[in-house]
């Protein structure tokens, strides 16, 4: 059973062992519109919780993707670099951004579970 958590900045993080996959939510991709460019960190780089970890650009504008947790980037999804529209098509699946080896599991505790995130998005109107 993997643990799925969400940030108020509309990133998702899925825990599997001590590795998390990170991406943006369906709400985020729908607000961005057509994704035309993704910039991912180099594997080996350390990302810090709440700091910029990637960039996603839509036809309209560029947005930062913040790391939901701290840790070392161990893998990035080159498929979304080659074909950014995958982020729109399957944000929670094929459209993942990166995998990070979690530095401190306690960082997950402050994040929302799916029910909390769903009601958070509903509250955005």
């Amino acid at each position, binding site marked *: 059973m993997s643990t799925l958590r969400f940030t108020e900045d509309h990133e998702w993080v899925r825990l599997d062992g001590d590795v998390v996959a990170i991406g943006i939510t369906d709400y985020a991709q729908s607000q961005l519109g057509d994704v035309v460019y993704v910039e991912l960190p180099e594997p080996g780089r350390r990302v810090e919780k709440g700091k910029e970890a990637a960039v996603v650009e839509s*036809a309209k504008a*560029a947005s930062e993707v913040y790391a939901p947790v701290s840790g070392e980037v161990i893998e990035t999804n080159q498929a979304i670099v080659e074909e950014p529209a995958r982020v729109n098509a399957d944000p929670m699946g094929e459209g993942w951004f990166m995998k990070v080896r979690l530095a401190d599991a306690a960082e997950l505790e402050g994040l929302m579970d799916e029910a909390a995130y769903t009601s958070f998005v509903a509250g955005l109107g």
Partner: protein
Amino acid sequence: MPLSADPAPLRRTPLHAVHIARGARMVPFAGYEMPVQYAAGILAEHLHTRAQAGLFDVSHMGQATLRGADAARALEALVPGDLDGLGLGRTRYTLLLNETGGILDDLMATRTADGLSLVVNASRKEADFAHLRERLPRGIAVEPLIDWALLALQGPLAATVLARHAPGIDRLAFMAATEASVAGTRCWVTRSGYTGEDGFEISLAADAAPALAEALLAEPEVAPVGLGARDTLRLEAGLCLYGHDIDEGTTPVEAGLSWTIGKRRRSEGGFPGADAVLRQLSDGPRRKRVGIRPDGRAPAREGTDIVDDSGRSVGRVTSGGFGPTVGAPIAMGYVRAEQARQGEPLSLVVRGVARPARVAPLPFVPHRYHRA
């Protein structure tokens, strides 16, 4: 998309309900609540316009009539275009200039039986009309069209579609205008646009606009298109956006708009900033607007610093993003004249990293205007 942060209540165009019913995402723009995109999204709307026909609501733009026998000659005191030589029912793109040759606005002027009809930018319309009233002779009446709408139907199938509702309209020449009955409504139709494609702008009374929009949208070739795709379409076509690619600090010569300065006007002068503009025409400007193609995939947005191989700043991007038809990032910006040659290598500083790019010819996508 450049969005205004105006706290004043937003105005609505006559097509507001049509946009909402079609699932538009509405944003503030130049004091209006405008559709930035519909459900299909910017990429699909852009590609649809290049393949078939897109319907745009541009009712936020300023429409006015200059009434008076000498309106065309009188307006020449404020613009560098040859308007006196404009035939009846012909349209010309021209520029309102300030005393130093800076661009106050760009506009379309059409010669009518009783003067000129003008279409100016939404963000500039109040300032433009005040400028015209202040500077034109008393005999020329500046009459903004209140309660009027403006629709643009753009794309390779626009003429076929519009001719179903206005037989014969497909024979209208590029940059010409005519009064026409479209689906039974009296309209003023111009063959022009802001996408690089063939197309029409249709001016009509506000109360008749929703029905005409629905009639056009009912055609299988037509999709509604928002401001997002309007911006990517005009950028690929190399067309300037006022307040971004041109403003009071840029001259027609720097902006690559010397072609708008009529031959007679070059010899006679007599427009604001003529000394400076004509000197730039003969000596060459110090900087020029150019097209830019990044080598990589990262779009360079407005404001991006342009540097040479030694890291020295040589200019700035004024419009930039992803070109859906080009399938790659594209930009326009100003660079020093020495760096304006096609193929000139430059770097664009995006998120602190200098990324290679080259000066590229404009437009990025060939214009496909109607040529009879």
